């Protein structure tokens, strides 16, 4: 979903979670502590979905680290 941030319509890639795959391993929050925290059952809460080009490398590293292949960076 592209969202409106201020006056700027963004088509930046977004972090998404495939909830059917996520087992709550928690690696994502360790690698992206500013973006992702965990709920009381250990499942990720994504605070900042949109990924600016400067952050792409870090985010991609976290995506590929997810043992359940549940964390994704999608473009629309």
């Amino acid at each position, binding site marked *: 979903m592209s969202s409106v941030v201020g006056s700027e319509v963004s088509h930046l890639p977004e972090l998404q*979670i*495939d*909830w*059917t*795959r*996520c*087992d*709550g391993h928690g690696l994502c929050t360790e690698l992206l502590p500013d973006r992702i925290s965990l*709920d*009381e*059952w*250990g*499942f990720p*809460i994504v605070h900042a979905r949109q990924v600016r080009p400067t952050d792409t490398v870090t985010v991609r590293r976290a995506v590929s680290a997810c043992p359940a292949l*549940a964390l994704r960076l999608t473009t629309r």
Partner: protein
Amino acid sequence: MTMTMAARTTAPTPSTAADIWTIGAPRLLAGLDSHGALDRAGHLAVHGPLPDVDLTRLLTLLEGARLAGRGGAGFPLAEKLRALHGSSPNVVVNGSESEPASQKDRTLLRRTPHLVLDGALALAAALGTRRVTVAVHDHLAASAVRAALAQRPDGRRVRVELMGGGFVAGEARALVRALNGGPALPPGRDVHLTDQGVLVANVETFAQAAVLLRLGVRRYGESGTRAEPGTTLLTVGGAVGRPGVVEVPLGTPLGIVLTAAEARDTRAVVTGGYHGSWLAPIGDVGLSRAGLDSAGGSLGAGVVLAVDGATCALGELARVAGWLARESAKQCGPCRFGLPALAADVQALHRGDPRAISDAFRHAGAVDGRGACKHPDGAVRFVTSGLRLLRDEIEMHLRGGCGRPVLSRLPIGAGR
């Protein structure tokens, strides 16, 4: 193809069948007051022949009448048709009706199957496809559709699939996965069925299309509101004297339906089923998508359940919250762990635990929007709307209880 000789299959209406009644002139339910079920001859006598339409004409009709899906989401049918990709799409009639209180779809399939088939086959013809599937959970509906297909020259185009599964299995993407031999579970990725060449719509939506093809936009719009023309089917239940499947013009005031259903001492109304909302019994709320939305309710698939003053409403809420938790497909962590936690909070509140209210809203917030399907979102809407409406009841429970028994006014899982 042999045509059957029987003029009327007055199929024995099973004891579980819902009564039917109407406010205003019946359209979908026309002819059903006097017959158990309409066979082909009876159907044609009541409804007349179905006009042939091409895709352009069909889209003009659907857009003119603003025909929206009747399975809950209310998506415009014309938009679904326009979004279809690929040649020879598959037309799927979703008769899962996994909402426990809803009876309207199986009632249509059991009692006026030709109307539903008319709609599905007309859409298929206009789309240039011969692939039509009717998917149902109810075996009586399956037999009624099979019997109806044997009476039609175009009946061989349609296959009937008797599916299993719970609440979530009726979700369109889960249904299509199951039809393709997969699990009856919503997929984890965003999937647009129309991209895959599949048109899924609710049973009533096809019946409405069949009515619209015969009436045309102008006559179709003589019922209903300007924004939402036509009639809708409701399943009315709970604390009422006349439960049943009811056809009403869209926009009919809630109070008129409750009075006609012989509801007494109504304290709350559940609208839209168990993914819907609790609402105060405000008589002039119009039963349309817009009318209910603006009142904080939801039309959903047309379920209207009255909760009276004899039962403990908070206990009713707790029962359904427990059912919603059990109906989680348990694929997605927040739903799997969050809905049982939320249900336990409502139970605790029922027992008078003062901490449970903040726990409930915290757990609800942790579940909402965090699943592959809309089950967590719908369950949260149902529970939180109930908690907001039942403030006085909750207050009583915190002071020792309301003194009323839980009479199970809200059906869960029964009748299937």
